[in-house]
């Protein structure tokens, strides 16, 4: 009997540390589970990232991430409460605990990470200053814009970027400044300028307001610095940050591994690829280690789609914006999107 007790105790001692590692302790995740819904801080309205369709349903790239996190936790992408936050209050609302995660086309920066005490789990969209020009202008690259006039919004780094670019390349791109996007769109459409510039997503939005969007094209180059946009979580809850991070990687991994909404059942039934099997919960405890069940990756791909599919439906042709993938393409196709290894 004594020997049995010692054996059991010994076994517990050996198992205990291993268990302690798999036990996910996250106050945010616990609160979300108890509440029964995720509270997602989103933009109050911006094409591509977060907007309401004509039925009042939230759509967009950031929304897809909110839905994916809820899907991983609850098995239902609908269990999200959206709180629209303006750029002024977004971080304080996150810090106050009113929202669980902020996914609001917000740039990942040094100060936000350090001084504001926020974690930056994953970049979900890379953008930079992009140009859109009339096809009839016959320009294929930014450096050919010498002498052209570009409409843009005033009071941003867009102007200084162009001035710097002019100086560096010894050319002259003329600018026509506006206060409101609508005015600038109208001026471009009316032919007062040859092109329009803003960050990639906004330029795509501008193009879709033109009378003949097909007459306009995006130039492949961008100027100014790269702006990585993505999710934010409160610091001090690593397990929660991890979940948010790996939800993003699961979506990218889906595209990398060639699993999407359309073929998921087929892949799940037949795949022998270890990485894919782990993503879809056929092997390993990859969900449990994050504090959700092992089918989380499968559900995300099935209900939301992989990153490429989400991009197509929001910024791509299906979303009506027609913005080329560019930097948001997979690393294997010249973009910046990648996933860490799944083992």
């Amino acid at each position, binding site marked *: 009997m004594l020997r049995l007790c010692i054996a059991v105790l010994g076994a517990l001692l050996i198992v205990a540390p291993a268990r302690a590692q798999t036990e996910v302790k996250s106050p945010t995740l616990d*609160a979300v589970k108890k509440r029964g819904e995720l509270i997602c801080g989103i933009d*109050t*309205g*911006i*094409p*591509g990232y977060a*907007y*309401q*369709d*004509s*039925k*009042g349903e939230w*759509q967009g790239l950031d929304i897809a991430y909110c839905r994916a996190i809820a899907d991983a936790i609850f098995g239902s992408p609908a269990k999200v*409460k*959206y*709180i*629209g*936050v*303006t750029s*002024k*209050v977004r971080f*304080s*609302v996150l*810090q*106050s*605990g*009113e929202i669980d995660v902020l996914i609001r086309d917000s740039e990942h920066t040094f100060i936000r990470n350090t001084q504001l005490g926020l974690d930056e789990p994953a970049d979900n969209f890379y953008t930079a200053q992009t140009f859109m020009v009339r096809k009839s202008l016959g320009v294929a690259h930014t450096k050919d814009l010498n002498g052209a006039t570009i409409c843009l919004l005033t009071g941003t780094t867009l102007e200084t970027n162009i001035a710097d670019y002019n100086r560096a390349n010894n050319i002259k791109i003329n600018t026509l400044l506006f206060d409101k996007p*609508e005015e600038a*769109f109208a001026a471009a459409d009316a032919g007062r300028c040859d092109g329009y510039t803003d960050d990639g997503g906004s330029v795509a*939005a501008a193009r*879709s*307001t*033109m009378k003949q969007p097909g007459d306009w094209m995006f130039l492949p180059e961008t100027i100014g610095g790269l702006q990585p946009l993505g999710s934010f979580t409160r610091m001090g809850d690593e397990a929660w940050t991890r979940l948010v991070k790996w939800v993003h990687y699961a979506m990218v991994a889906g595209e990398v591994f060639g699993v999407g909404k359309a073929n998921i059942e087929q892949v799940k039934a037949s795949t022998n690829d270890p990485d894919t099997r782990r993503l879809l919960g056929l092997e390993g405890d990859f969900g449990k280690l994050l504090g959700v069940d092992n089918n989380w990756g499968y559900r995300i791909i099935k209900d939301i789609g992989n990153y490429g599919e989400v991009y197509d439906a929001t910024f791509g042709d299906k*979303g*009506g*914006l027609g913005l080329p993938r560019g930097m948001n393409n997979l690393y294997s196709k010249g973009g910046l999107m990648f996933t860490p290894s799944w083992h």
Partner: protein
Amino acid sequence: MSEATAGQRLTVRRNFEPGTPGARIIEWTRRNLFGSALNTLLTILVLALAALILPPLIRWGVTQATLHGTTRADCTGDGACWTFIRVRLPLFFYGRYPPSDYWRVDLVAILLVACCVPVLRERMTHRWLWVILLLTLFPALAAVLLWGGIFGLDYVDTTLWGGLMLDFIVAFVTVAGSLPLGILLALGRRSQLPIVRTLSMGYIELWRGVPLLTVLFISAVLVPLFLPQGVSVDRLLRAMAALVLFNAAYMAEVVRGGLQGVDHGQEEAAHTLGLHWWHVQAFVVLPQALRIAVPGIINTVVDLFKDTTLVTIIGLFDLLGAVEQALKDPAWLGFAKEGYAFAALIFFVCCYAMSAYGRSMERRLSRDQ
């Protein structure tokens, strides 16, 4: 201008020989529009301006506008694309409230009208009974209907409330909360008790000295930081509380203006009859003071109704918020003009109705005196 011509019109009427309606119109036009060289010039200028603005406006808004269809591709004309408004109309009125539960909002609207009509109508007996109904039973019923969660009604979170409905809810709560609070503050400010007087004055000066935007930001951002972990108050409730507290200060000043307009003798006379202070205020001073304060109160109400659009800055989508939201839908980008014109029209109709009622009430009150 209306006051200036009022005197003239009296003399006109006295000297006027009744003629045919046509002659009367010509006479009215001659006197009012072409009475002097300046008036003639102004009339011609206004007509010229109208001729300049109206035809393109009508062409844009009516003759070349599109109303049919369901997608952007249907808007082929050069004019406005009202299809955009039509497709989104439920969103502009109900926000993201579940469509199958629209009847709940409709029912609340009907109840509101049913309670308001007796309160606002002329010479209503037992008006006070209706006022109490409007301030107690109606809000309780409306809260049950809109929120749900009991009596088999589905729970509808306030994040789904929006559109014009939200403007009305916020405006109603703000008026219903700030007017009584404002009256108390106004009485407090005139009180003989130094502590009550100082507190009331401090309150009024504090809230009047802070911009509304700041107050809303504090309610949205700072209040959750002060609350203990795990406790959260709905952000719509926080915003409404902020609006009530803020507008109470303005209401107090408007009511105080009315109180000062009541002759001091009234109060003294009531005191000599042996009435208690509260009775003096409630039955002698306030009825007269509120009558004087009506234009100011209506003015404040119109003002705060428009201020309800400010809730968009803290992420609540009222009518204006819903319109701005609609402008961001990639399927419907580029219809800002239509969206803002629609919002402006709705707000104008609502505010004009309020001020028209206010004017008729003023006329009635001055006639009664």
